[in-house]
């Protein structure tokens, strides 16, 4: 008698689960907000809020939410309607990211979408958005986002290639200004999507800028034992270390080379791990002197400083991470486009983004001070900044016109 009863129970459990699933899958559409009419206007925020990229995903989310609060506090859009965030977790792989975006776009008629931080997630999420005719305003670096001929992908940050080439231009300038010649360099990059692009571009750009590359290594993004890397750095004796990767790997590497007495300057390629709060907290005073290229820094204009100050007050951090800043700008761009289109209809908002050309408001947060998208959807006026940790805080040190302090080399 025991067997059939357990069997029945299990079957019931499965049937219930399936029923719940189907209800969950189909429900929740009727009562959601709508973009036409007088109600709140939903915009989609798709970021990885679980898994390996959780920290950066959450930072992006916080930046976007701060922007939405600011927009609503300043009177909303379309003469008083409020923006409301619809959040989905891009999870831990591109398929989950796409599925989450699809579900969200299905459930809520959003005016636009922000996401998905990590390039490989953005690649699938933007495909979902493209099919749905919804604009994806993204901060991801991957060059491929703007080479696929998509109409609805808007990339607000410089390309990965631009990051890697500018690093050498900036360093040459900085070393010249300090009366030194270009140092011999070691290039270390993780083998994830953005790392590989930074690596390829850096390896190509370094010799052109007269840098002698004495070591170039790609390492797995989830590396745990950095011993072999440190041994190789010690053996190659570079005068500067160009480092890309997730914060955890970079913390390990920088700590280990410092323990080994290797005291060369470290430059974060394409921002990445060295620009995270975790990196700053883990290295303590040892963080000072570390350089990095970023698409945004909280000291670049008074407006950026104001946003960063409020962000830090809300999240008790010591600085506003670049991904928070770029997500903040992204949300504002959608708001501007809604007003320009005079409608919250996703297709009209995307049309408005294509011809958007602003040099005030959110554009003041970016170097270059303007946002307009070219035919491929790239914000052409953006360029990277070089920051250096001084007194535990990232300070813009190059290009000279944006610099807030002199670089210490």
């Amino acid at each position, binding site marked *: 008698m025991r067997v*059939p009863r*357990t069997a029945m129970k299990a079957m019931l*459990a499965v049937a219930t689960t399936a029923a719940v699933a189907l209800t969950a899958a189909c429900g929740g559409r009727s009562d959601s907000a709508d973009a036409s009419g007088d109600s709140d206007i939903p915009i989609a925020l798709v970021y990885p809020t679980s898994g390996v990229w959780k920290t950066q995903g959450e930072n992006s989310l916080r930046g976007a939410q701060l922007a939405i609060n600011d927009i609503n506090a300043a009177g909303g859009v379309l003469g008083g309607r409020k923006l409301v965030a619809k959040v989905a977790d891009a999870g831990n792989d*591109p398929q989950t990211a796409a599925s989450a975006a699809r579900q969200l776009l299905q459930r809520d008629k959003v005016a636009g979408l922000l996401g998905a931080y990590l390039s490989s997630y953005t690649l*699938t999420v933007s*495909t979902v958005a493209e099919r749905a005719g919804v604009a994806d305003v993204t901060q991801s670096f991957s060059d491929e986002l703007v080479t696929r001929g998509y109409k609805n992908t808007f990339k607000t940050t410089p390309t990965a290639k631009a990051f890697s080439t500018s690093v050498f231009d900036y360093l040459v300038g900085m070393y010249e200004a300090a009366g030194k010649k270009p140092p011999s360099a070691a290039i270390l990059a993780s*083998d994830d999507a*953005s790392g590989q692009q930074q690596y390829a571009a850096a390896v190509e750009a370094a010799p052109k800028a007269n840098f002698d590359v004495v070591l170039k290594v790609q390492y797995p993004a989830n590396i745990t034992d950095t011993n072999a890397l440190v041994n190789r750095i010690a053996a190659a004796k570079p005068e500067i270390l160009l480092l890309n990767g997730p914060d955890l790997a970079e913390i390990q590497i920088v700590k280990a080379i410092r323990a080994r007495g290797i005291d060369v300057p470290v430059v974060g390629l394409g921002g990445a791990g060295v620009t995270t709060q975790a990196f700053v907290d883990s290295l303590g005073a040892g963080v000072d002197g570390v350089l990095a290229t970023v698409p945004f820094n909280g000291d670049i204009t008074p407006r950026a400083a104001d946003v960063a100050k409020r962000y830090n007050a809300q999240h008790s951090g010591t600085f506003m991470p670049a991904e928070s800043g770029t997500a903040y700008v992204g949300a504002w761009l959608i708001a501007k486009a809604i007003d320009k289109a005079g409608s919250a209809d996703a297709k009209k908002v995307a049309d408005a983004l294509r011809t958007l050309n602003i040099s005030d408001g959110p554009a003041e947060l970016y170097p270059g001070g303007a946002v307009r998208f070219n035919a491929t959807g790239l914000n052409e006026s953006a360029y990277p900044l070089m920051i250096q940790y001084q007194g535990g805080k990232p300070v813009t040190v190059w290009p000279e016109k944006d610099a807030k302090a002199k670089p210490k080399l």
Partner: protein
Amino acid sequence: MSTDISRDAGTAPVTPPSPAARSRRTPAKAAGAVLVLLICASLPLWAFPDDYSVGILMQIAIYAGYGLSWHLLAGYTGQYAFGHAAFFGAGAYVMAIFSYHTGLSPWLGLGLAAIGAAVVGLLVGLIALRVSGLFFGLITFGTALMLGVAANQLVGLTGGAAGLSLPLHLGDAGMMQFDTQVPLYEITLVIVAGYLLLTWALLRSRLGLLFRSVRDDPVAADASGVNIRGVRLGALCLSAAMAGLIGAIYAQSLLFIDPESAFGLTQSVNAIFTAIIGGMGSLFGPVLGAAVFVLLREVGMTISDGDGVYSVLFYSTVVFVFIMVAPKGLVGIGRRLFGLVRRDAGKRE
């Protein structure tokens, strides 16, 4: 201790009914199967017309096909591939690389994907089938790992870790892209139906008998002149081709593939999950398993408010409890229930 760990691998989980009983029920079963498939095919028309739900149905169909391919190998020849993603991912990448670099129609890529995956299966088999059991499992696992590394490192061909993003040709059926996801879902269903038919026909053929003899008693099979390695290799290549074809569909449905979603550990585990939840040794087990697996995953996402970690925790716990309560899977439960009814009916007669 002996290193022959194959001897106790893959005992028959379900004893098949006698041939007479099977043939008597076949027409009714076949009619039922066709009906179920037709209902599945029409679901987007009346029950779940929206994009998201079709996406879920699509995932179910993909994992059903993927589970069927794993199950063909494990359930009928007793070879447990821990790294089945090696074949799934190979198919996905062959398809993606082909259509990305040549710009030709993915319809051609489908065939190439199946062949490419079968070749991977052949290579694995030539080494792995010298041994069996755990070694086989670990070799497929290692192959998935190696192919993942290759996909990551050969940036020029595969796009590296960033993956390959396939160009969009919305509404161009020649490029296997449609205005909605429904046509691709129907194509996948046709493939799944094909896999079911293939498995069914195979089991009734002499080859199916060979499969089972190799699984249940390799020593006796060897003694009676069966080419064990040949049979195993054939089953492996077939299973690999099936996984590869479904992998290609997966890539096409996303228009994207990267090393982790093609060759990752999760993707290998997914095949095992779907096949075993459904119940080993039954034709429809993997299909049922795929439905339960995908729905559990979505329920997990919903109740955990979109947090992937808690979703994994949820569906793993459900499956674990389920396995401890009902080790024979969903189909096993069904069998026990119906078996009981039938026995009772017999008593009354």
